[in-house]
């Protein structure tokens, strides 16, 4: 284990997963040479269309599957080590929980797996249920009677039962109403404030853009981009100037001035694109022409049903006043 690995929440080196058929012949390369470091205390977004390798990455980090090549360290320990599971919380894509238990029993069961003392569980379970917004009657109902949103909430509660240092959230807002989505985002932000590391895997790009410090976009098992959200979304070849209190005449004069030299107190920045545009551009750039993601199939739903938004792949200024440079 390297020093770097000690400091990182997650570190992978050449992480590769090749699925094989019955006879051991390679069938699909789900993930190839992933070199990734996720720092402690950051909210990290793992993005990519269906089949891009993000679920495989999560499964590898949790030890649900084993790497074909390379290594993965989580909180300084090899991935899959049950010792580090003490400090990990995981919300799966769907709430894969025992349907015959009720909400409270579910949390108690998972709490016991962490050997949380009975007294502590008595305190923690109601608090968590309050936190995720499950009311008293809901707590006594069997999970099979839960709506999708309620199932997400109890799923989130079980992921937090051990007060984890690292939380992996796979599509956390799926099935939640707008208020629930907002609460989930607030929760992620509050977790970050508590110094927790959050790995977020989501198709709802606006959510990711709102809460993530850094993101990576995976496509066809390879990492396509990695960086801070703000940096990745900047359109570097365009400069944007912002100024307060100018009338139309003055604006004309500024324009004339700007055409000659420059001006004081003027905000000059690059406009940012949306994460959605960035995502689509990366997918297109890496997709062959005859692929469903390309050309005239802009509004088509490619395999896996990932929605492709309309509009140009070029920058789309986010300036609110519409004063494009």
């Amino acid at each position, binding site marked *: 284990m390297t020093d770097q690995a000690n400091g990182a929440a997650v570190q992978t080196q050449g992480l590769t997963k090749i699925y094989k058929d019955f006879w051991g012949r390679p069938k699909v390369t789900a993930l190839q040479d992933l070199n990734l470091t996720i720092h402690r205390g950051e909210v990290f977004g793992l993005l990519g269309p269906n089949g891009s390798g993000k679920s495989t990455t999560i499964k590898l980090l*949790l030890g649900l599957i084993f790497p074909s090549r390379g290594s993965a360290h989580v909180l300084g320990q090899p991935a899959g080590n049950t010792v580090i599971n003490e400090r990990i919380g995981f919300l799966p894509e769907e709430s894969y929980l025992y349907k015959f238990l009720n909400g409270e029993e579910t949390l108690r069961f*998972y709490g016991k*797996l962490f050997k949380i003392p009975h007294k502590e569980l008595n305190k923690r379970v109601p608090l968590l249920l309050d936190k995720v917004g499950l009311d008293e009657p809901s707590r006594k109902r069997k999970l099979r009677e839960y709506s999708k949103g309620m199932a997400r909430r109890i799923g989130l509660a079980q992921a937090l039962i051990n007060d984890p240092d690292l939380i992996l959230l796979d599509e956390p807002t799926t099935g939640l109403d707008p208020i629930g989505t907002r609460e989930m985002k607030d929760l992620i932000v509050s977790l970050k404030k508590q110094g927790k590391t959050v790995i977020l895997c989501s198709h709802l790009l606006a959510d990711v853009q709102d809460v993530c410090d850094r993101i990576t976009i995976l496509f066809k098992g390879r990492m396509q981009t990695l960086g801070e959200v703000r940096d990745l979304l900047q359109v570097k070849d365009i400069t944007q100037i912002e100024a307060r209190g100018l009338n139309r005449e003055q604006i004309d004069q500024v324009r004339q001035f700007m055409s000659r030299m420059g001006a004081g107190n003027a905000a000059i920045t690059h406009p940012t694109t949306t994460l959605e545009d960035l995502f689509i551009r990366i997918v297109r750039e890496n997709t062959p022409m005859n692929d469903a993601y390309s050309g005239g199939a802009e509004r088509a739903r490619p395999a896996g049903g990932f929605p492709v938004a309309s509009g140009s792949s070029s920058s789309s200024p986010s300036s609110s006043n519409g004063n494009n440079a």
Partner: protein
Amino acid sequence: MSWLIAQTAPDSVPGYVGWIIVALIVLLGLAVGLSDVVRFSPKRIWAISSVGFRESIRRRVLWVTPLAMIGIIAVTQLAHPVDEQDAIRQTTKYCLFASGIVVVIATLILACTSLPKEIDNRVIYTIVTKPATRLEIVLGKTLGFARTSALMLLVMGLFSFIYLKINAAQLQASIQNRLQTMPASDPSRGTLQHYADEGLLQARTYARPAALQVYARVPRPGDKYTWTVGAAEQSIHVPFALPEELFDPNHPEAQLVFNIQVATDQPRPLTRREIENEMPDPTATTRPSTQGVQKWPGKPRIAVSLLNENANTVVSGTQLMDVMHLDQVRTKDPSVFKDAQSVLLEGISGQSGTGRAVIAVPPKWIQERLKAIPAAADGTRLVYLLITPLTTGTQFGFGADAVTASAVMADASGKPVPMPIRPPAKDGKPLEPSFRGRLSSTHAQQLRGDSDRAEAPVGVYAFHESGLVAPAGSDTVPFEFRTKVERSGEAESTEAENVTNVELTLFNHKTGYTSPSIMITPDSDRPTFFKAPKAGVEGGDFDLYVRSRTDGHYVGLRTNSVAVVASTQSFAFNLVKSLVILWMLSVLVVIISIFCSTFVSWPIAVVLTLVILLGRWCVVQLGDPSSPQQMATDFFGPSANAVGTRVFTDTVGALNKVLNLTAKVLPDVDQFRVTEDIERGVTITPRALLDPLLVILTFGLPMLILAYVFLRKKEVAP
């Protein structure tokens, strides 16, 4: 692969190989998951087991128990028991059988489906991403379903107990009614009275005899001879430990010679029945009249053969040489000689005397047959010389040294030198000859019935039960007697003659006390209870003499035909022990099911579990093929193609080896004897509880470790 194993595997796999395999599996488990063993947490296992238990309950698995109860009640009502005890026996059997079936099927399905379903619906994601190790998951699931089966058995056990109690109370009332209306002389009164006194729901602990011998008359201390009767009704088995030197390849000429000294007594002329039985004439259409005929028995003859330890013939009478009468066969063929099927005892003149016979085993059979007997650690081979007195109306007496044996080998000069052979020893004591009755078709020793007490052969059961204590406040001790009665064709078929009278007498070796004769009338294959004086059994070292006193009725005796009721136990406790054995069976089912479900889908896991559970039993039922050569002849005829026959015999032989090898590594479910004792009202011994536990330890534990290893190496994300 299995072909290769069959071709290369030895015919007999040593017993310790199984232990080596178990040790290797344990080591494998430790090598793969030592860290998981270190992190082992009973709290987590209990939590996982609780979920499995709760899942079973909420899947309404207990709903099958009322169905089983209705089934038991229905079947009990339709059954036709012979008597009250049989009714209770059958009901007990149905209750335990239904409980077993319900629990085994329920746990089989629950345990086989649990893991594959959790992997399929991905619930396993939220378990393995918690600190629970896969060892804890396997153990937790096993414990969970074991708890489920325990609950089911508790429900079924409570029902069985209450149902049996109600039935027993009704039957007890019926017994009381029968006793009131039954004549005092009724032969079944004793047994009924026993049930009336002791109740029908019992758990008795029996003291069983150490040995059974069958004689012409009861041997007394100081007697010079021990007497048997002729007409091939009885025989004597004399053990010998054949020395290693006898099989020395440098002495192919070695012979084995037996010297037999027998006293004979022919005190009376033959009876009418004996004459009729002695004069079979296959060509006669009618039997000659025996009215007024007085005929004395012929000259005493015996038949001799050699048996192995399991009483199977190794060298038959036709292969043994009657040395004293070799001149009776006039032929130049050296391979033809006077055999030992009917050996005349020489030296007897008159109606009593001592006769002699010399029997030799030709070198050919020493090398071919006797050498094939497995040798003991000291190189000796155990054989029994079987001597069967043949002459009707004659008693044959065997003294202490009636039979001696010697190996005759040539010395350096070529001169034959006899080397005496000693009887083998067991626990420091020489093995004594045993006297046996003729074996019936059910392998019981026959005891001929005779209304004349002096003529009736006697079966002697020797008890050595030092801890035997008679019930407090009672002058009698209860005995159980169970026999198979056979009636000869000559027996009259009147009502009175259909009853078999058996006379029983106790002789106490310590006090010299002889009890008065106790007469009982046993039913065939049914327990008969009688009470004997306490003085006869005090000290525990006593004999029970059994005589059949009805002409033409043969009583079949086994060593376990007689037993003293040493103590009784509560039926409820015995039922609990039966349920514990059933529970251990269900635990084994759970372990095998979980093991199978770690690498195959649940429907295949169900089938595979059944194959593993029943495989050994099936192979035992199939048995060894009589002979591949014989089978080939049966299939293809004697003139079949030689190559085809060879392929067939090799294939059958190899298949047999594979089956036997497979059976050896599969669990022995016969060890889970649930109904055997309790239905007979016998206390279940600690041994009966220990045997299934050993199966779980020696088979279940390695399976559990393998299940863990497989799950540890399994990618649980589909």
